């Protein structure tokens, strides 16, 4: 479960208790604290850096920093928020240091690629088409294939469920920029998952649907002109 959807007092209290214990030198509190948050940190690092080796480095450095500065953690914000910010910073710094190429331009090429090109409905039950494991692999591949600026936006907003404001702040961009990246990220993801989750349908149904679509458009056009 993610902590962002919870009220600040649930889950967060557990974190505070564990932090107190670690600060008091209780090493047994380390494991639950790390276990609870490692996945989030790993995912963020992987989203920004794009490969497991660099993500591992960034994750280690994030936790080392967190534990070194645990006494500076200001309790009015949630531990998760603080940790996430450090994880994003560490990952972005690493990306800069490694000079990993990141195309920051929201070019017309990406723009046209993110325009929907598939218009078939998806199955209501994806597990009828694929096993759980396969679905996860499909999703992971689709996310990994996104350009980095879209990948990191999607992970922060739609997996870690940060608010637009929090995600924009963490990435050092404006909220409108974040929202525009998020829209493209979602559309690109939808496009690349579409072939795997579309409802298998017969050609005759497709032709009927297209005819209905033309009819609806004409009807809407007539209503519009009648209203003038």
């Amino acid at each position, binding site marked *: 479960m993610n902590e962002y959807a919870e009220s600040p007092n649930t889950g967060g209290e557990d974190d505070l208790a564990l932090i107190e214990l670690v600060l008091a030198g209780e090493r047994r509190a380390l494991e639950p604290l790390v276990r609870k948050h490692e996945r989030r940190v*790993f*995912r963020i690092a992987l989203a920004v850096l794009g490969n497991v080796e660099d993500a591992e480095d960034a994750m*280690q450095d994030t936790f080392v920093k967190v534990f070194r500065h645990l006494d500076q953690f200001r309790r009015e914000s949630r531990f998760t928020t603080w940790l996430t910010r450090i994880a994003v910073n560490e990952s972005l710094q690493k990306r800069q240091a490694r000079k990993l190429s990141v195309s920051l331009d929201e070019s017309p090429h990406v723009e046209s690629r993110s325009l929907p090109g598939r218009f078939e409905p998806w199955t209501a039950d994806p597990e009828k088409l694929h096993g759980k494991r396969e679905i996860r692999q499909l999703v992971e591949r689709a996310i990994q294939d996104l350009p980095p600026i879209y990948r990191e936006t999607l992970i922060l907003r739609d997996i870690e469920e940060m608010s*637009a404001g929090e995600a924009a702040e963490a990435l050092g961009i404006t909220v409108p920029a974040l929202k525009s990246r998020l829209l493209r990220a979602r559309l690109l993801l939808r496009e690349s998952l579409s072939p795997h989750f579309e409802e298998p349908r017969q050609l005759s149904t497709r032709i009927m649907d297209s005819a209905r679509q033309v009819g609806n458009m004409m009807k809407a056009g007539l209503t519009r002109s009648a209203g003038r």
Partner: protein
Amino acid sequence: MLSCKEVLAHLSDYIDEESSTEIRRALEDHISWCRRCRVVFDTTRKALKIVLDVEPFEVPLAVSARLYTRLERLLSESS
């Protein structure tokens, strides 16, 4: 009346329930008769649900173990 392109521009806000009432009504009117936009809205939602459901990207066991070893070392140095 909104064009398909305009409708698409509002998709994310609509999914996040951040659209104004006026925009929301205009979008719902559009997708009530435009099959393509309806499919795009519905399948984008489904895609995001699938992404949340599968909880992608587990930490590989070896990666997790190395992290833990490093933190233990750090704690024992500082205590």
